[in-house]
C-alpha cells in the first residue's frame, strides 16, 4: 500500500490550489450565483489544460490518471468553484471513447459540451448539469448516445446556483447505438460519480474548517464554543468520515486507473458515502454558526447548498448504494 502522492501530483494540487484561491474566492462565487458560471474562472482552468489532461495522449490530450483528475476535483470542491469542470471533462472523455470527431471541437475550445446523467424521457433530458452554459449535450436517447445542441431559455434557478437546464433531445446527432452506447454512458456515469465524490470531499473538508474556525473564535458563556463537546464531538465524527471518504475516493480512482473489477462499485460507494459525509459536515458547520449560519452573508451557506445540490443532479446516497450493490451482486 502506498498513500503518498507523487511529486507531480503534489505540483498538480499546488497549481490548482493557487488557481482557485486567486480566481474562485467567495465573492467571485457569489458574483456567479445568478448564472452559476464564471467565464473568467473557466478560461483560467482551460489555460491550465483541464480538458486536455482528461483525454488520452493518442486522442490529443495529456493522459492524466483518474486519480489526478480526482485531486483537481477535490480542490474545485474546496472552493465551491462556479465552473462546470467535471461535466465537461466527463463529456470529453465519452467523446474520446466513442472516437467521435466532435472531440476535436471540444479540445480546440470551439464547442463546449456537457453530459446528461439520466436518459432522455419523452424527448427531454431534465436538469442536465452545466447545460445552460453548453453548446451541446451528450444524452442517452433510448439506446443511442446523441449529441444534442442546446437551445436557449430552458435554464432554471436552483438550490446550488448551478447552470442547469432541461434539454429537448429531438433531432440530436446519433454518435453510437446499442450496447456500446450504453457501456460508454455507464462508464461516463462512473467517472462523474467518482469525480463528484472527490469534489464533495473537498467541499466537506473546507466546510468543516469553516465551522472549526468559527467555533474557536466565537465566545459564549465566557468560553470558546468549540470547547463544548456538543459541538466538538459531531465535528470529530465528520473529520473521521471525511478522511475515510477521501481514502475511498482515491481508492476508487486508483481502481479505475488499474481497471480492477471493483471500479464501478467503489465509484458508487465513494459518491454515496462522500455525499453523506459532505452534507453532514456542512450541516454541522452551518449549525454552529447559530443565526449567522442562516444569513446569506456567511460563506458556510454556499457550502451547505452545494453539498446537497451537486450530487442531486444524479441522485441521493441510497441511489449510490444501490448502484454499488448492483455492481457487487450483478444486475437483478
Amino acid at each position: 500500500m502506498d498513500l503518498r502522492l507523487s511529486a507531480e501530483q503534489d505540483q498538480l494540487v499546488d497549481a490548482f490550489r493557487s488557481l482557485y484561491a486567486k480566481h474562485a474566492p467567495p465573492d467571485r462565487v457569489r458574483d456567479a450565483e445568478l448564472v452559476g458560471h464564471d467565464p473568467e474562472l473557466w478560461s483560467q482552468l482551460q489555460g491550465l489544460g483541464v480538458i486536455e489532461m482528461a483525454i488520452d495522449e493518442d486522442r490529443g490530450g495529456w493522459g492524466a490518471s483518474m486519480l489526478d483528475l480526482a485531486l483537481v476535483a477535490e480542490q474545485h470542491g474546496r472552493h465551491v468553484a462556479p465552473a462546470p469542470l467535471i461535466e465537461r471533462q466527463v463529456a470529453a472523455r465519452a467523446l474520446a471513447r466513442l472516437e467521435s470527431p466532435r472531440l476535436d471541437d471540444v479540445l480546440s475550445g470551439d464547442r463546449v459540451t456537457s453530459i446528461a446523467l439520466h436518459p432522455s424521457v419523452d424527448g427531454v433530458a431534465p436538469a442536465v448539469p452545466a447545460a445552460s452554459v453548453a453548446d451541446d449535450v451528450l444524452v442517452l436517447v433510448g439506446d443511442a448516445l446523441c449529441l444534442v445542441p442546446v437551445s436557449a431559455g430552458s435554464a432554471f434557478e436552483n438550490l446550488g446556483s448551478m447552470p442547469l437546464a432541461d434539454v429537448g433531445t429531438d433531432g440530436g446527432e446519433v454518435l453510437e447505438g446499442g450496447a456500446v452506447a450504453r457501456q460508454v454512458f455507464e462508464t461516463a456515469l462512473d467517472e462523474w460519480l467518482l469525480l463528484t465524490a472527490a469534489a464533495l470531499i473537498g467541499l466537506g473538508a473546507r466546510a468543516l474548517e469553516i465551522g472549526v474556525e468559527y467555533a474557536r473564535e466565537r465566545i459564549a458563556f465566557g468560553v470558546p464554543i468549540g470547547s463544548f463537546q456538543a459541538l466538538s464531538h459531531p465535528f470529530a465524527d465528520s473529520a473521521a468520515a471525511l478522511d475515510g471518504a477521501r481514502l475511498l475516493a482515491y481508492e476508487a480512482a486508483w481502481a479505475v486507473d488499474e481497471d480492477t473489477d471493483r471500479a464501478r462499485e467503489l465509484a458508487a460507494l465513494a459518491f454515496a458515502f462522500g455525499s453523506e459525509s459532505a452534507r453532514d459536515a456542512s450541516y454541522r458547520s452551518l449549525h454552529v454558526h447559530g443565526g449567522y449560519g442562516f444569513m446569506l452573508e456567511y460563506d458556510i451557506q454556499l457550502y451547505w447548498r452545494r453539498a446537497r445540490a451537486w450530487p442531486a443532479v444524479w441522485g441521493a446516497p441510497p441511489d449510490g448504494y444501490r448502484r454499488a450493490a448492483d455492481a457487487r451482486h450483478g444486475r437483478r
Partner: protein
Amino acid sequence: MDFRLGDNADSLRAALRAYLDEALTDEVEERLYRSGVSHDADFIGGLIDRGWFAPAWSEDLGGAGLDPTSVMVIFEELNRREAPMYATSVSLMVAKALVKFGTDEMRREIVPAVLRAETICVLGFTEPEAGSDVANAQTRAVRDGDEWMINGSKMFTTNAQLGDYIYLLTRSNPDERKHRGLTTFLVPLDHPGIEVQAVHTISGERTNIVYFNDVRVPDSARIGDVDGGWSVLTASLMDEQMASFAPWIVRLLEEVEAWAAETGRIDDPGVRERLGRVAAQVEVALLLRRRCTWMDEEGITRNVEGPMAKLFSSESLTQASQDMFDLIGPDALRSYPDPEAVRGGRIEYMMRFALGTTIYAGTSEIQRTQIAQRGLGLPR
C-alpha cells in the same frame, strides 16, 4: 498511490483463511459460545507453531518479527473469524509493558512464558468508580518497608478466572495530583486476599470484578517507578490506540450477503441499498485502519488516525448490526443454540457484541475528544 497490500500479504491471507477454516471447527465455536471465554489453548498452540501468535514481536524476544502490513493482515483474518485471541492478546500487551518497564526477573521469566502462551495476564485499570477517567484509580498501595499493602477493587478484569497475573494500577500517593500518585504492579492472581467474582455481559463474554483485601506484595512486583504509573500506563495503552473493528463489519456483511442470497432477498432494491451502505462502512473502516499501518510502515508519526479508525469502525459496527438485524426481520431474533437461527445467530450476536466496542479501548467520547483537540485544534 497503490491500494494493493502486495503479493506477500495476499498469500499470507490465503494461508490464514485455510488454517482458520480447519482450526475453528463447529466444536470450537460451540465451546467458545457456551463458555463466554475468548481463549482456546489448542488453537493458540496452532498459531504459535505457524509464527502467527506474536507476529509483531522481534525474533530475539520470541516473536515472528513481521512487518506492519503482515501483522495487520493476520489480525484482519483472525478477527474476521473471531478467533479466540482476547486472553493472549491482552497478555502480550502486558508483556510489552514488562519489556519496557518491568524488572529483570519479569523480563526473564514472565515475558517468555507469555510468548509461549503459558502465562495469561489480565488488565486491572478500570474500577467501579473510575472508567474513562482511568487516572482516578482509588485502589490503594501503601508502602511498608520492602512490601506494599494493596486494598481496593478492579472492574472488567476479563479472564481473571483463568489468568496468572493482574497488571494493576494503584494509588500510591493520594497527596499528589491524580496523574502523579499512581504506581503499577504485576500481582499473581492466586495471591491470598484476592477474590475474583464473575460478571456476565450482554455479549455473552464473561468478565470479572477483582477484590483486593490486604494483599501484601514485595517491592519486586512493582513495574516502573514509584508514582510513575501514569507513564507506564500510557505507553501500554498506545497499542489500543489503533484498535479497529473493521474485520467484524467485514464478517457482518459476509453473513448478511449470504443470507440475502440464500433467501432471494438479494434481488430486492431496498435490501441492496442497505447492503451497499454496509459495504461502504466496510471499505472505509478498512481504509482508516490500513492508513495507520501504512504510516507505521513509512515511519510517519500518527496523530489522530488511530482514534479515527477506532471511532468509525466501532460506531459503524453498532449502527450496521442494528440495521441488518432490522432487515432480516423476526428470524433475526433467534440465537446461536436454535438450529433455525439465521446464519448461526451471528447477526443477533454481533448486535450485542458491538455495544462493547464503543466502550472499551477508549470510549467513542474519548476518541472524539482526542480528534477534536489534537486533530482539529479545538480548545479544551
